[in-house]
């Protein structure tokens, strides 16, 4: 016999639900405390919600850095991405001098000379720090990433912030400086004094100098390399008025990629 609606209703009424447990109140108060006291704003909660995503993103970025390092190590020719054919490659060393005139090499560096209307300088391709394997290993990972990302970021970001015409003005200033033999001008950073001309690695250089407080800085600018400095030294003033060499950066080799 199929039960009637009344029979079914009568049966259904026999199922009663329990009351909510008293412990639920304390539990909810604690949860409220956490939610409101420690994550006071919806934005904070949204940020907290993004943490797992941020972790994944960091993981992906770390993976990308390691992958890039492996590729550049295993396939050095992939550096063509960074330093295209025709680029000027600079090998240099950085020296620290002691009071007795002896020196130690603090860094070996290979870089690409980069001169574009929006970026002027060197892009570090690799570097090593004798006696500091940790720093060497860290920069082995970071240098390729910075070399690839840095110039591209400049191309994207600089136009957003530069005043109209700045890029063009920079381009004109670089060209003018090269034309006048890399003689520093008041428009080019700290005013320097030309003290002569020297040949470094078969490049004619204009030697310029300036003093700041108790230090003297000297640069060897090469007009043929867009005024890139092939050598730079820092000297400190001694009590008797003489200067003592404290550090030096010197280019060992200039090649075309």
């Amino acid at each position: 016999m199929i039960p009637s609606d009344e029979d079914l209703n009568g049966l259904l009424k026999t199922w009663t639900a329990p009351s909510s447990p008293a412990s639920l109140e304390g539990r909810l108060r604690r949860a409220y405390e956490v939610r409101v006291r420690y994550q006071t704003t919806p934005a904070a909660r949204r940020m907290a919600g993004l943490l797992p995503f941020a972790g994944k993103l960091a993981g992906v970025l770390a993976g990308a850095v390691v992958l890039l390092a492996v590729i550049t190590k295993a396939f050095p020719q992939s550096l063509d991405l960074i330093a295209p054919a025709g680029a000027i490659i600079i090998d240099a060393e950085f020296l620290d001098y002691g009071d007795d005139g002896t020196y130690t090499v603090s860094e070996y560096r290979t870089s690409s000379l980069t001169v574009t209307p929006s970026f002027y300088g060197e892009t570090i391709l690799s570097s090593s720090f004798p006696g500091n394997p940790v720093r060497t290993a860290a920069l082995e990972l970071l240098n390729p990433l910075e070399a690839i990302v840095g110039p591209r970021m400049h191309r994207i970001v600089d136009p957003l912030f530069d005043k109209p015409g700045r890029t063009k003005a920079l381009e004109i200033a670089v060209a003018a400086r090269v034309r006048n033999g890399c003689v520093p001008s008041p428009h080019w950073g700290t005013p320097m004094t030309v003290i002569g001309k020297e040949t470094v690695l078969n490049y004619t250089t204009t030697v310029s100098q300036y003093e700041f407080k108790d230090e003297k800085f000297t640069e060897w600018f090469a007009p043929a390399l867009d005024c890139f400095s092939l050598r730079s030294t820092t000297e400190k003033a001694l009590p008797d008025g003489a200067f003592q060499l404290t550090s030096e950066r010197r280019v060992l080799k200039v090649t075309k990629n």
Partner: protein
Amino acid sequence: MPEQTDEALLDLAGRSEAAFMLLFERHREIVFRVAYRLTNDAAAAEDITQECFLGLLDAPGRFDPAKGSLRTYLYGAVRNQARKYHGLRDGDVDLEDTEVDEAAEVSQIFLQQEQSQVIRQAISTLPLPQREALILFQYEELPLEEIAAILGIEIGAVKSRLHRGRARLKRILTPYFQGSNTR
């Protein structure tokens, strides 16, 4: 604290624990009760109740008094949490006429001695959409319009779910009725 509307308390809930707990006291029983009936699990019902009330802290952006009362909103929140408990995501549809071996279900049900357990087991065999409609109508005694608003369906669909759910229960419970009438 003078008597305040749910909406006023909700506005204060993010800054006032007292306002939040007052809302909890007003609605805790219906939320827990429906959660329990939808999940058949007291521990799950506690979790769902907590989530529903904590969800109210985000409600100023989600709860629209023009669409219904806070009670209706909470019923909808319980229903959504229960669907998550059953492994259903938003938009998933639990088949209404899932083929089940009713005879097997019945044999399990009648192993239970307590009448209320028999009913509970019988209801738990209903597809979730039919169970939701039945619990809101039969136990919460909500009008069809409100059930339709909570479930996001037409009133006709609510009636249909109720009809099919009750018919199914009758079929399942027929042997129990016959047995109890001859006892």
